[in-house]
Structure formats: C-alpha cells, structure tokens
C-alpha cells in the first residue's frame, strides 16, 4: 500500500527527533553503491504515473488558483480549547439551508405560481409525482428546522459571548441572515395557496401594515395592490426563490469568511491561560521540547 501523503502542512508538523529524520542532508544511503535499485519497467512507470495523476491534477489547479494556501489556512486553523457540539449549530443551519435550496429547486420544476393553478400543482406534487410528497415534506419541515437551528445558533453565540469584539460585524450579518430566514418562512407559507396559507399571509401582510407611516405602503408593495391579487403570489414566489436566496448565499459567504478570519471563541467556562514564560536558553536547541512548549 502506498504511503499516504502527509496531510498536515509543514509548519504544523511535529519535528522529527534527532536520529529519526532519515539520512543526513548531502549523504547518500550507505547501501546505494553495493545494491543499486533496479530500473522500473515501462509498465511500472506508467502505473506510477497513473498513481500520481490525481496529485498532478490538484497541483495543476493549485498552481493556477493558489487554493492550497487558502484551504490550508481554513481547514487547519486552530480552534480554542473547550470547543464542543454547540459550535456545530451554525454549520447545521447552513446544511438546513442547503437542503432547502436543493429541494426547492426540484419543487420549482413542478410548481405553478398562479393563483388559479398553484393549489392544483401542489396537489399534483403530493399525490402524483414520484417522491413528490417526500421532497415537499423535506422542504416544509426543513423550513421549521432551519428557523429552530438559526435561533439555537444565535443563542449559542449570545450565551458564549461570541458576539463581542472583534466579532460584532459577524453578529450583525447573522441578524440580517435571521431576518432573511424569517422572510423566507413568511413568503414560502403562501405558496401552497390553500386556506391556511391564504389567511396566514393576509394576517401577516396586515401586521406589516400596522407599522406607522410606511406600513400601509409596505402592505401594498407586498400585495402588489390594495388587495391580495393575481400578482401577489408571483411576487412572493420571486422573492422566495430568487431575491432572498441570493442574498442569503452572499451573506453566508461573508459570515464564514469572518469566522475563518477571526477564529472562534472559547466557551466562557474555559479560563484564559497565559503562556508560560520560556526559559531563555533551554529550548533553543530543540532538545527539550517536552516541557514549556507543549503546555498549551
């Protein structure tokens, strides 16, 4: 079995102990002259090249994108002590969003955003399309899951104090993502166009309208007119599947960039540890790494 390439990048790798790091630089192994290695056959060379092909492809891409530096920084970034399962709530929310995006794309293949046909097209999805009820169910229940997860994620951030300097901007982006998620839930609710979604949307739009001065105009904007009409459903559909998903994807990108850039916080119950003051000379020769340097 070929040896796997060392995945840990060199700066994070543990240095070899003296005497175990292979032959010294500049000196051939002692047995090279007495028993030289055999020349590989053509077949062996081809096999060896084939084995290298994936690495060659990766290197080709890396040379042109410089992605490995970014990926190394992102995937091997340090996380604080005490990181636990609560820290996965953000990723869980993102996965819920991905599920919504994927199932939503396939629902859009069968859905008709017209006031007279929407209900029938949903009934068609649920009753006649193979696995239609399942995909629709994933989208419907996944919406609730995403809302629950995003609130849990916000609670984690709040109670762990992870919104404080220098992460305030990430908190602000997260709040915007929360609002967009609620808007998704609101606009998606009308789409089946049954009695429940119809009246729930009327109540929701009217709650929007109770805002002073601008509220009435916001209601008219949402309905595209003074009453819930033919264009209201199309408008909700466009907001639900085009406008907000794009904004959410862009903001998730910014959110993740800041997470990687700033790192995560330790939970509040983990005390800050001061690095021990290094003894002036003892560690410089590298012979005594067991004490001070590994204290973290």
């Amino acid at each position, binding site marked *: 079995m070929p040896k796997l390439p060392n995945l840990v990048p060199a700066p994070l790798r543990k240095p070899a102990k003296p005497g175990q790091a292979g032959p010294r630089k500049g000196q051939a192994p002692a047995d090279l002259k007495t028993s030289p290695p055999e020349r590989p056959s053509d077949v062996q060379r081809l096999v060896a090249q084939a084995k290298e092909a994936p690495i060659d492809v990766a290197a080709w891409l890396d040379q042109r994108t410089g992605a490995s530096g970014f990926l190394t920084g992102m995937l091997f970034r340090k996380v604080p002590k005490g990181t636990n399962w609560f820290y996965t709530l953000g990723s869980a929310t993102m996965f819920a969003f991905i599920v919504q995006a994927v199932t939503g794309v396939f629902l859009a293949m069968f859905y008709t955003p017209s006031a007279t046909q929407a209900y029938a097209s949903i009934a068609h999805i649920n009753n006649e399309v193979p696995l239609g009820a399942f995909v629709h169910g994933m989208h419907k229940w996944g919406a609730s899951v995403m809302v629950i997860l995003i609130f849990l994620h916000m609670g984690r951030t709040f109670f762990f104090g992870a919104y404080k300097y220098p992460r305030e901007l990430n908190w602000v982006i997260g709040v915007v993502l929360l609002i967009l998620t609620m808007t998704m839930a609101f606009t998606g609710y009308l789409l089946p166009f049954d009695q429940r979604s119809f009246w729930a949307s*009327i*109540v929701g739009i009217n709650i929007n309208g109770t805002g002073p001065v601008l509220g009435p105009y916001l209601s008219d904007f949402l309905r595209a*007119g*003074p009453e819930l009409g033919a264009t209201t459903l199309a408008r909700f559909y466009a907001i639900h599947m085009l406008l907000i998903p794009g904004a959410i994807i862009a903001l998730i990108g910014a959110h993740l960039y800041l997470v990687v850039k700033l790192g995560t916080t330790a939970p509040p119950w983990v005390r800050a540890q001061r690095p021990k003051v290094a003894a002036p000379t003892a560690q410089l020769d590298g012979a005594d790494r067991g004490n001070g340097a590994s204290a973290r």
Partner: protein
Amino acid sequence: MADDADKTTPANGATTQQERVKPEPPGYFEGESMTRRKAFAVAAQGLGGLAGAAIVLPAVGFAVAPIFHRGKERWEAVGPVSDFVEETYRQVVFTETEGIGDAGKTTAYVRKSSPELGEKPGEFIAVSNRCAHLGCPVRFVEAAGNFICPCHGGVYDFVGKVLGGPPVRPLDRFQTRVRNGQVEIGPRYSVTSQLKPVRARDPGEFTGGIWEYLYPPRPSTFPAP
C-alpha cells in the same frame, strides 16, 4: 507657501536632499484643482454609477409601481332591492379582485338603511366581513345581532362598531347604489369610530384624528364617498 516656492524656483543649489520636490504630473498647470488622473477616475465612476442607475432604477420602479396604481372601479349587482330589509343583514358574495378565481371573492353583509339608527333613508348599507384587527372573516350572528371574528375574538355591534376584542376600528363598508332595481356594490371604504367615511385602510390601522396621518391613505384605494 514654501512648497510653491520650491516648485517654481530652479534647482540652483537651494534644494537639499530633505526638500526634494515631487515631480509634477504630466499636464500640470499652475492653479489646477484636480489632476488629470483624478478627473478621469471621477468621470469613470460617475459614468459607472449612471449605467448602474439606468439598470437598477427601472427595476425598482417596476417592483414598487403597484403602490401608485389604482385599478378600475368595479360595481357588481348582488340582488334586487326587495331582497334587503332594515332589521337584519343578508350575506352576499361578490368579486373584489379579478383574475384569481374564488380567492378574489369577498363577503359583505347588506341591509336597507334604517332611519331609527340615524341613517339616511332609501340607501343600502354593505358591511365588509373583513375583521378590522388582522383581516380574518367575521360572521354576523343573528341571535346576538353582532359580528364575531373567529380568530382573536373581535366583536362588533349591529352597525359594525367595536364592542370588544382587539379590533382598532369599526368594520369596513362598501359603496352601494341602485341600478335597474338591483343593488350594486362598489369600492371599499373605511370608517372612523363615529362611522364617518374615510379612504379604505388595511386591517389593524386606526382611523380618525391623528391616525389619518400615521396611517396615510394609499394611492391604490378609492376616495371615500
């Protein structure tokens, strides 16, 4: 001032290493307020902004245009004059919004105007069944003589004034007229707590007094009768 002097005087030994003069950009002239480079940068960004606005503004206008659009006034006959009495309401269903089938229909409770209640005789009163709280459909309960909302318990009296619950104003009404012996129902309007007609408001919005300014009338609605 010292800089200006340095720029204009030839280097006859007066300038030392410390006071080295930055070379003037090409095209520099005395008294210019903006370099050529900056002028082009501003012009390019301005043109870019103009091009962006040419795309974004029509799109936004397209999306918000319905706020300023008022549809055609719509009248629908709901029955002969003899169908309606003063003492109680008769439920009629008619189309308020066209093009969306049954979803565009709404319900009104219609009766003859009653001089006993201080109304002008010979007219017809059409009370909307849309609750003034959040827009649920209310029902006229004959035995109680009240309108009752199933959602949050709003109660209105016989003329539509609030008796209890969360509604913020009386029930909306529709304009009525008689044509060829038929009662016709027209555009919706709202009323104040004193039943004074005002332009139609959405549910949840107060009417009368200062509220007329906090919940301004929308251009998409018809003027009050």
